[in-house]
């Protein structure tokens, strides 16, 4: 594995190796001294063209716990806002000797472009690109699902096991969601069954080629499908306005049809857990009752995110030779 660009690129074996490594990383995080020397002397650049404090902090924490040097490059207040291109930014970072570039970009495919271009010799990690992919989010979701639903509850002993037999409902704005795309592919690879639930306007044309089921009725999926986990996607309020695309008539109607509230929580199987990639719109796609219930694992997802990102950086960088500063050659 040279880069992590898309959940679709991960084989069953790759995915399990990352999850198992994440389990080992998580175990080290229970120690008093959390820092490992593994990536000492390596440089990880967080290249964020789009605001995302959570994801950036998660990657930064992961890199620092592995003793890597971290450079945060955010588009705001940088030369990018003055019109510098992705290419020039990448060449600059390359000249500074980045071993890995963690990129968040509003354009779908920007990490692919970066990885294929030769502008950087480092490993490229996709930290979310447009409405395309967010593979580390899917990995941390899979890790969280496995911890809770596979083997002994709450233990890390699920190591080596996949998600075979689980049913996961992913609810919300699938059309604009890189989280949904990544999860459909990864959870399928790991043997889970996925049902996407959304109003028809928020399901992409072409979804029929995806390895999942699609439903427009959340209540039917909860009652008939008995999902082991339900993953709520963020829905932007702007999507209802005509300039935002007019995808649904009102936030209230959306909540009635697709929001997770106390009533729907009660209909879920008792063991079912609730996930959300954050940030949440309380009162829109998820009520406070659901978000704060003891079956919600939303805060734990954040912690697992660090372990999973440590695993990804470790697997991409450990054993690789540090990149030389090629501009000096």
């Amino acid at each position: 594995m040279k880069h992590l660009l898309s959940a679709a690129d991960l084989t069953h074996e790759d995915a399990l190796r990352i999850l198992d490594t994440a389990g080992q990383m998580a175990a080290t995080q229970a120690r008093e001294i959390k820092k490992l020397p593994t990536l000492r002397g390596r440089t990880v650049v967080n290249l964020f063209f789009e605001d995302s404090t959570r994801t950036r902090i998660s990657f930064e924490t992961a890199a620092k716990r592995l003793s890597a040097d971290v450079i945060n490059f955010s588009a705001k207040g940088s030369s990018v806002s003055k019109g510098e291109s992705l290419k020039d930014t990448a060449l600059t970072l390359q000249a500074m000797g980045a071993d890995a570039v963690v990129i968040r970009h509003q354009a779908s495919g920007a990490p692919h472009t970066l990885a294929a271009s030769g502008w950087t010799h480092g490993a490229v990690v996709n930290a979310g690109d447009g409405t395309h992919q967010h593979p580390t989010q899917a990995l941390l979701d899979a890790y969280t699902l496995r911890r809770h639903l596979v083997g002994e509850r709450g233990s890390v002993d699920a190591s080596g096991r996949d998600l075979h037999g689980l049913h996961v409902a992913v609810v919300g704005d699938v059309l604009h969601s890189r989280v949904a795309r990544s999860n459909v592919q990864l959870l399928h690879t790991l043997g889970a069954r996925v049902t996407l639930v959304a109003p028809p306007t928020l399901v992409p044309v072409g979804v029929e080629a995806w390895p999942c089921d699609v439903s427009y009725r959340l209540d039917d999926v909860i009652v008939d499908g008995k999902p082991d986990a339900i993953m709520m996607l963020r829905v932007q309020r702007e999507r209802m306005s005509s300039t935002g695309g007019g995808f649904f008539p009102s936030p209230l109607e959306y909540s009635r049809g697709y929001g997770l509230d106390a009533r729907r929580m009660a209909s879920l199987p008792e063991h079912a857990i609730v996930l959300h990639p954050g940030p949440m719109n309380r009162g829109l796609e998820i009520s406070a009752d659901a978000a704060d219930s003891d079956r919600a694992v939303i805060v734990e997802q954040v912690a697992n995110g660090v372990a999973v990102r440590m695993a990804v950086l470790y697997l991409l960088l450990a054993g690789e030779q540090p990149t030389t500063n090629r501009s000096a050659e």
Partner: protein
Amino acid sequence: MTTYLLRDVSPLGEARTDILLADGVVAAIGSALEAPQDAVEIDGRGLVALPGLVDLHTHLREPGREDAETIASGTRAAALGGFTAVHAMANTTPTQDTAGVVEQVWHLGRRAGWVDVFPVGAVTVGLGGERLAELGAMAESEARVRVFSDDGKCVHDPVVMRRALEYVKAFDGVIAQHAQEPRLTEGSQMHEGVVSAELGLAGWPAVAEEAIVARDVLLAEHVGSRLHVCHLSTAGSVEIVRWAKSRGIDVTAEVTPHHLILTDELARGYDPLFKVNPPLRTQRDVEAVREGLADGTIDIVATDHAPHPREDKDCEWAAAAFGMTGLETALSVVQETMVDTGRMTWADVARVLSSAPARIGRVDGHGRPLAVGEPANLTLVDPAARRVVRPEAQASKSVNSPFGGRELPGRVVATFLRGRATVLDGAPCDGGSADAR
């Protein structure tokens, strides 16, 4: 002026004969013609002679974007592609929406001398879609504009489209529509379907083209005008045009070389070389446009040659410009997809790349039969040659060809504009433009 004797060429791929070009016209056709004194003989064995190609849809970028292409560089590329005439699209800066600008383009084309340049006039002022440009003034200018288009943008307002269709009847003009419903394609990046869903790129649905094509053929029927559909790209559009023609509606349609051969699957690598408008469609659409071209539903192949500077393609997909070059590969793509597959003859190629576009554009002296007394506009092609496309080696100022590294059949060996060689042995005759000045 040099006299050329083309020995043993195959006109339209048919029986070998000699063709004599003298004083700007086809002076004689027959076997074993006697060479006049000073005549340059060209060994035409294995070469197909076609009437000089006519492109109804070229972006030459001048005035305004001379960093991407100039009239001189674009028309030189055209000559190398076998063309003797091109229609220069109106989306320049300033827009070709006045007699002054179209005359400037026409003069620059004459000065360059590689091909005849026929400027396309904008339908609306500044391509704004609101107010008709002075179509009559452009028609009566030295440039004699007959084709009007807001290409790059759709004349989406039905009333403006209706008025334009009606108005150009006065001078036998045609409205060439870029069929793209704007609301259905806001922010669109590629064909909407299985691939866009996976790649997370905003979709450009087929219906956004088909809805406009359907509306426009009905408008053309209602007001009895002539409509041309630019770069038709979907199976549904082929069906609509077929239906319209069966009703006797005066509509013509074009397909680009790239829509005859490439599909949306190529977007998977996020390489903006494959970003084009209308977008690359599915294999089913490719099959439908080939079928439509073969059965005459689609009248012509036009390049939509759209050069862009390197920086506009050397970036992330969403930030990249739409468009690809095509003048120097068009004939090869048509050979590969239509001739080598047995769907069309070379006579059909002459129709879709020369006589039909000349007729639609109401261009005199081009797209004529290869017959004695006709203007000596023709091109010689070696259909047995194969070549690997190297965009850097092309004459276009831009390198955004989607065919780089791909092997294509056919090679343009020579091109003649009114008896003067613009291309010989596959190389441009750079001194040749002098006598046009």
